[in-house]
Every structure is written in structure tokens, then in C-alpha cells.
């Protein structure tokens, strides 16, 4: 067990937690905002996959990871336009379209990747990191001289992510956009009556969701894996939906949830490395089991926007 306490292992634990947590953080942050505006993006997995593929593609051909992240975000946003057009605009069922997006994304990325890269299987190098001066030299939380860094030595995109979380929280609470988003999810007719376009509000929230999920996917392929692989998201989109709903509309809780989940995956690795025999089935179940137990013991009405997943039609009876 003494192995557990070495600084290298603890650093790796944090690094692993961040690697696993950041994709979830981006995706569930986007989902949370869209849900507050009343749009349930069941197709999050699809956005992430597309973001992962195009992020990888841009990073690979452009030779620049930052461009890759932008490319992933743009691709995710582009796919979310399907949702905007079909669901927000025309009022088609969000769950049907969301699932269709996931299926199309799974099929399309596998198909194109297979056609282009199955033989060459390119990988990307390590994503460049920035070391926070001073702090990055600290043991465990510093991580300047390790493979995947630690809290104070991460690729800029991770810090940008934290800034986005803060900005999102502030925007939701303090700005007109935020107010509109909250109203669009709780009572779109009121927003409409106040002269604000429900469609536009929901559309922007959905595009934000697409961009964030695409960014999460791009992080997954560019930084977390350094390559693309069919179905690389492995169901993370659905986990992100769960996290977004558990966050009850609060950006901070998205942050906490994502990293708790990331760390719990990372802990299972570290325990195994330390020789503690533990079933990964069990460990993977743990965060969910914990949440369920908490819900059963302290279960109270969970907050979800009243108009979630309902199309808004002006004056409908």
C-alpha cells in the first residue's frame, strides 16, 4: 500500500482524473446550458464524436493542437445546427433527432476514419502544457515534470475550460442572455411575451452545447488519447447528460461532478497499480451507485426546467 503514497502515483491520480474529467466537463457544461434553455440534447455523444474526429483531423493536418480544439468546437457547433433546425425551429421531437444525430455521427466518423486512417493510424504528440509559475513545482499538485501534468501544469485548454465554467455561471446569473436562457426553459411563453425570441435563445444555447461537446470530444482525441478511434467517446456523452442533470443547472456542480467522476475512474487505475485487487466493474459502478443511494436516502424533487424537451409554439392550445 505504501506505493499509493508516492508523489508520482498521486500526481498520476490527479492527472488521470483531469484527463478523464475534462471531456465530461465540457460536454456536460454545454448540455446543462441547453437544458436550462429547454433543449435536451440526447445527441451529445454524437456532437462529441464529431468534435473528436474533426479536432483530431485539424490537429493532425494543421499540426497545432489549439487549432484542433477550435476545429472540434466548430464541428460540434455545426452538428448542433441540425438540432437547431429540426427541433428548435420546427419542433420535431428532441429525443428522436438526438438519437439520429448520435447514430449518424457514429456511422460517419467510423466510416471516414476507416477510409482515411485505418492503415496509417496516425497519433498526435503530447499536447503542450503551461506551467503556472511557482505552483507547478509543488509536489503532487504541481506536476511540471511529469507526463500528464497535475493541477498546475495543464494544457491551456484546461484552464480555458475553467474560465468558461466561471463565465457560464456568471452569464447565467447576471446577464440578459442568462436570464433569457433560464426563462426559455422554465416558461418560454413568458419569454416570448416579453419580446425575446424563444427560438433564437434556444438556438444559441444549443449551439453553445454543440461547441462545448465538440470541444470535449476534441480534448478526448487530441489530449486524452492523442489519436482517433471509432466510437472513441465510449458512451461518455450519456454520462455527461447524467452529470448535467445532476448539476441542477449550476455550472459549479458540473465542474465538481465531472472531476469526481474523472477521479473515481483514475482511482481504480491507481488502486490496481498499487496492487489492490479491485474489479473495474465495481469501481465504474461506484459513482452511479453512490448517486442512486444518495437519491434514495435524501431524494428530493430534482430540479429540471419545466419546459425541457418541449417544443415552443407561440399561442398553441
Amino acid at each position, binding site marked *: 500500500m505504501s*506505493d499509493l503514497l*508516492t508523489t*508520482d*502515483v498521486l*500526481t*498520476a*491520480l490527479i*492527472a*488521470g482524473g483531469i*484527463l*478523464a474529467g475534462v*471531456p465530461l466537463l465540457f460536454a456536460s457544461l454545454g448540455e446543462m446550458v441547453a437544458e436550462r434553455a429547454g433543449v435536451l440534447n440526447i445527441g451529445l455523444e454524437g456532437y462529441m464524436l464529431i468534435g473528436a474526429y474533426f479536432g483530431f483531423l485539424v490537429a493532425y493536418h494543421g499540426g497545432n493542437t489549439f487549432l484542433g480544439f477550435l476545429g472540434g468546437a466548430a464541428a460540434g457547433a455545426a452538428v448542433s445546427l441540425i438540432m437547431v433546425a429540426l427541433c428548435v425551429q420546427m419542433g420535431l421531437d428532441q429525443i428522436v433527432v438526438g438519437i439520429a444525430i448520435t447514430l449518424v455521427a457514429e456511422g460517419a466518423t467510423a466510416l471516414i476514419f*476507416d477510409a482515411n486512417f*485505418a*492503415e*496509417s*493510424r*496516425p*497519433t*498526435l*504528440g*503530447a499536447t503542450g502544457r503551461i506551467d503556472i509559475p511557482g505552483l507547478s513545482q509543488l509536489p503532487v499538485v504541481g506536476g511540471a*515534470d*511529469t*507526463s*500528464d501534468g497535475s493541477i498546475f501544469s495543464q494544457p491551456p485548454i484546461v484552464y480555458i475550460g475553467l474560465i468558461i465554467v466561471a463565465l457560464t455561471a456568471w452569464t447565467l446569473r447576471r446577464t440578459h442572455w442568462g436570464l433569457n436562457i433560464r426563462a426559455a426553459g422554465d416558461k418560454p411563453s413568458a419569454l416570448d411575451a416579453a419580446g425575446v425570441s424563444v427560438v433564437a435563445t434556444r438556438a444559441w444555447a444549443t449551439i453553445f452545447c454543440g461547441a462545448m461537446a465538440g470541444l470535449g470530444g476534441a480534448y*478526448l*482525441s487530441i489530449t*486524452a*488519447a*492523442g*489519436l482517433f*478511434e*471509432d*466510437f*472513441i467517446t*465510449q458512451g461518455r456523452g450519456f454520462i455527461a447528460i447524467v452529470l448535467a442533470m445532476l448539476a441542477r443547472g449550476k455550472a459549479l456542480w458540473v465542474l465538481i461532478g465531472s472531476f469526481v467522476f474523472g477521479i473515481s*475512474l*483514475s482511482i481504480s*487505475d*491507481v488502486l*490496481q*497499480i*498499487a*496492487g489492490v*485487487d479491485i*474489479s*473495474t*466493474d465495481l469501481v*465504474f459502478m461506484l459513482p452511479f451507485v453512490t448517486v442512486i443511494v444518495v437519491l434514495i436516502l435524501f431524494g428530493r424533487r430534482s430540479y429540471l426546467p419545466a419546459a425541457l424537451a418541449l417544443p415552443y409554439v407561440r399561442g398553441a392550445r
Partner: protein
Amino acid sequence: GSDDSSSTTAASSAASIEKIAIAAPEKGNDYGWNQQGVEGATAAAESAGAEIDVADGSGYDDVEPVLRRLAQRGAKMIIAQASGYNTVAPKVAAEFKVPTIVFDSPSATTPGEVADVETSSQQGAYLAGILAAKTTKTGTLGIVISAADTNWFKQAGGFAAGAKSVNPDVKFKMAQIGQAAYADSAGGKRVTSQVIAAGADVVFGMGDGASFGMLQAVETAKAPAGADKVWFIDVIGDKTPIDKKGVLLSSVIWDFTKVYEQAIADIGAGTFGDQGYDLSVSNGISLLRTDHASDEVWAEIDDAQAKIASGEIDVPLTPDQAAVNALIK
């Protein structure tokens, strides 16, 4: 096992086989299990002068129609290249009376219909263990597996035994990505990074798609204290073409060609299914030779290989995590 001495003669005498077929779960360009299977089958077909019908990328769930179709399209031998096919394939074999090769299901072997292939891959892993122990600077070896898979456990145990035969004090850091994370390359990278952070400078990695993530982790890793480089040892296939950074120390190659040739020969001889086949160091398991180790090391490995083939070295069989743990602790 069966003797492989007759393979060449058998191939020429098996003129009755016009077509053989292979069904594999993933596409045959994965630098791994599926590619090895397809390449082995293609080579065997070629040497028998038979046509080859490849149904790769068949997945696990719809395989019965695939196998039936292969039979209906005239295959005289079907290779069901996945242990996941080992219940459905005999069913199709029985119905169409097509000799069928299955994996990891010894009890399925039925005269004239089904022959099972067992892989003694632990033998190759043993050799990999020797190579790793000779290469490591930190004295710590990493083992990463993508799933709770018997083949992975067998090789993990063989690897540990081989390494310990060189240096009894060598330490192991072993971790599994997930229950079935065969293709989770992000997970592969995460876990491999952690194993390296725990001090391993040679990582023995087993996975399908996940292997690519492991390789990437090794490529981008910062070497642990005491080492100047981190190495990766792969399994089943040969990833040299995609090893841009030169970190691929070796790979435990599974070459099915001889086994499939033998099966064709046995069909010709009317003995197919009388017994199963064993893929071992004597007929297809080997260690990929690279120039990342010295000739002396390779000589030592060749020596060990001969000893395993002759039975002088007995490689332990560790079919589950508990058995592996007993070896690496």
C-alpha cells in the same frame, strides 16, 4: 497440438478445397487479432490454391447470418475468428457440414465439423518478459490490459514469469482499463500514463483499439526516474508501420498461417476435428524481432523459445486475475 511437419505436403494434396472463408469481428487492418487472422487465412488459402472469402468487420452480434452466408456461398472451410463465435459457429458447421475453426472452446471440437484453436500465447509473452527484464532500467515493468480477458491474463502471467526468470526482483505495475474497454483508447492512454508514472519503463500492453492509446501514452511519456526512455511491447500483430517514434520494443506475434494450413491438410486427410490445434511457439507464436535490443538478448530469447518448444521450460498458465496476481506480487 498437432504436428506441423506435414503442412507442405498436405497443402498440395488438398486439391478438393476450392474456397475457404473467414469471419472476423473487426476489420482486417487493425494491426492485431483480425489482421493476423485474415492474413493467416489468406496465406493458407494461397498455399492451398484456394479462393478466400473474407467477412471481416462482422461484429459479435449478427454473426450467424454471416457464417451461414459464407457456408452458402460455397466455403469448404470456415474460420470463425473470435472466441465470441464459438457457440454459433458449431451450430452453422453442423447444419451445413462445413469444417469450421473456432477459438477458445476445446469442448466444441467435433470430428469432421469443428476444430478448436487454443493459443499458448503465454509462451510468447514469456519471451517478451525476458526482453523486458533485459531492457528495463527502473526494474519496474508495466502490464496494461483493456479488459478482463483470459488471453490477456494468460499473457500477463507468461510475461511475469519470463521477466522473473531473468531478474527475480523485477516489480510489476498492472492495471486494467475497464471491463470491456477493448477499444477505449483514451482509457488506454490514461492507464498507461499512470503505470509509467508508477515507475514502469517497459509497458506490456494488451488491447484492441485501446492499444493505440497505450502506444500514444508511451510515445508521449516522460521517462520515470532512472530511465531515459519508455518502451512498449505489443501483442498479436505488428504495429511497426505506425511506430513513428520508435518506441515499439517488440510484439508477441500470433501467426495463424500454419495452423490454418494444417487444418486444410486435415480436411484433405479426413481427420479434421479429430483434435484441436494449439498455436504455440512451435507453429506461430513468436517475438517480433526489432533492433532495439542487442543480439545477445535476441540469442537468449531464441534459446528460451527452443526450450519452451521442447518442453524444457514450462510456462505457467494463468487464466484469471488471481493467478496473475499470485505471480506478480
